[in-house]
């Protein structure tokens, strides 16, 4: 039976909704992350599903609880790197000898599936509440927060896996290889823009409007790689532990100028699980609870391609909703872990939440990047290293926000970590949360 997604009413997507009713009633404790790989080698034990099971078991162990205590599971089923959702593609030979099969043949391979997880994790015998958080793990983080706050689950897993098959996954593949095109893509696809081009186009306009340039992105990109290389779980630490230089970045090949290869994130295989519970139950967990104070959501307007104005409008709204929801303000933030994959839109998120703004509203982020944005400095930008410093998952940012506020991040900021923000993905299609080391007063 298909798992449902949260109703629209659970999401805070407009001004004037006030403090979040669940503020301080939900905490994150345990965190588990799988090893990373660049691509799948078609062995069942290295599949996205296997990595997901590994991450869940680690998260439960990290929380110091029994699997019996888990009564909820929220999952992001989509895995958008490589083929997804094709029910006609059979699993590779030998798959059914290692895993029990769910009704969807690609479950555990190119798509996450709650039924598949429960079939293959018999220790999760008390799961009663299940829900999907489609598209992005940020949706699952918000969905699970609402579910715990509403009393639908007491101890809930938040889960996402990513797959990456051999070959380029959309260049010259599928619709891009055809000489005709149908559906909603036909209004833009014939012009041949790669995935990063809309971001590059808006970045270009941003630079024209505010007098900035692409070279000014170098300190941000290097900071991300540096922070990522501190994370023992990140792809670059595990497989390519080399620091980038300014010259590497400035001389990199263009994909859609002004976006180069380092402005694009690297598709990988990985999985994350996080344990949510109530503050009362967290007293029995091994890890310090991190409180969720509020959350917010934006969704795109209808266009062939988003515009600078739309992204500024959307991220401004996200900032307002987050602060209204949580009861804190931008000056309270100890760090920001907003999304970065593509690097060229991070500044929209950052400016929308007014991180380290000194009265500026727009056009200040690239100047901020020229100051000390390291974990040692006064304004830690993306201490997780994000997708760009760890590989594409859209989850490092949330994971690190929890670890920072527990005081155990491998890239721990040097000033006290009291409040943090993380959210993904696009500036006009984002779900974000405010996290706190302490309960709200």
């Amino acid at each position: 039976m298909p798992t449902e997604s949260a109703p629209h009413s659970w999401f805070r997507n407009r001004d004037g909704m006030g403090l979040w009713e669940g503020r301080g009633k939900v905490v994150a404790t345990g965190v588990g992350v799988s090893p990373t790989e660049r691509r799948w080698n078609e062995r069942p034990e290295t599949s996205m599903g296997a990595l997901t099971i590994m991450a869940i078991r680690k998260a439960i162990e990290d929380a110091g609880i029994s699997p019996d205590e888990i009564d909820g599971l929220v999952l992001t089923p989509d895995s958008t790197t490589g083929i997804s959702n094709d029910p006609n593609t059979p699993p590779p030979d030998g798959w059914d000898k290692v895993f029990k099969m769910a009704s969807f043949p690609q479950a555990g391979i190119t798509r996450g599936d709650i039924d598949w997880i429960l079939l293959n994790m018999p220790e999760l015998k008390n799961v009663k509440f299940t829900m999907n958080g489609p598209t992005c793990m940020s949706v699952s983080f918000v969905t699970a927060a609402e579910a715990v706050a509403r009393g639908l689950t007491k101890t809930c897993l938040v889960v996402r896996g990513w797959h990456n098959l051999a070959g380029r996954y959309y260049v010259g593949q599928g619709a891009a290889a055809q000489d005709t095109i149908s559906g909603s893509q036909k209004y833009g696809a014939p012009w041949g823009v790669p995935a990063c081009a809309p971001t590059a186009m808006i970045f270009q306009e941003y630079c024209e409007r505010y007098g900035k340039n692409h070279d000014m992105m170098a300190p941000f990109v290097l900071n991300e790689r540096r922070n990522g290389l501190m994370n023992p779980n990140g792809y670059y630490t595990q497989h390519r532990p080399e620091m980038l230089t300014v010259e590497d970045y400035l001389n990199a090949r263009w994909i859609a100028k002004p976006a180069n290869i380092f402005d694009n994130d690297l598709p990988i295989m990985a999985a994350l699980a996080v344990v949510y519970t109530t503050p009362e139950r967290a007293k029995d967990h091994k890890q310090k609870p991190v409180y969720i104070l509020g959350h917010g959501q934006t969704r795109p307007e209808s266009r062939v391609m988003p515009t600078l104005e739309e992204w500024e409008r959307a991220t401004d709204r996200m900032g307002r909703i987050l602060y209204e929801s949580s009861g804190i303000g931008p000056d309270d933030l100890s760090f920001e872990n907003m999304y970065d994959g593509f690097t060229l839109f991070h500044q929209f998120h950052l400016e929308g939440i007014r991180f380290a703004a000194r009265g500026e509203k727009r056009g200040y982020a690239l100047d901020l990047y020229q100051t000390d944005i390291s974990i040692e400095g006064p304004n830690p930008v993306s201490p997780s290293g994000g997708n760009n410093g760890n590989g594409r998952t859209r989850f490092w940012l949330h994971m690190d926000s929890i670890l920072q506020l527990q005081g155990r991040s491998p890239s721990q900021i040097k000033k006290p970590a009291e409040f943090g923000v993380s959210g993904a993905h696009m500036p006009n299609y984002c779900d974000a949360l405010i996290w706190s080391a302490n309960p709200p007063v």
Partner: protein
Amino acid sequence: MPKQSPIPDGLDKPFYDACNEGRLVVQYCGNCRRFQFPPLPACSSCGQAAALTWRQVSGRGRIKSRVVVHDTPVTSLVPDQPFNVALIALEEEPGVVMLSHLPGTPVDEVPIGATVEVIFETTPATGQKVPEWRVVP
């Protein structure tokens, strides 16, 4: 450049028929007094379908931004790399945007802010015409 041929459907047939006749038409909501593109079954602002009509626009716009594509996903365009892609804001409503290869403009020399006018380019697979844009000298 050999673009993919869009296949019209029931919703956007008036748009593509007009392209074949050398006219640019865009959906207009009489309730909200605004244009919208791409075509939708109802106005994205008020949700009304009945208030939508197709209106011919001037075919003039402004270059809002641009990129130079070096790694296109579309197979038929690979031989033309690198190429310009510009974002065109319509004169009637700058929030309505379309894409252009800016034929006649050298790669990486796109004059942001310049005025452009529509032309119609034939796509090879079906002969369907699509809007393209040229810088007004």
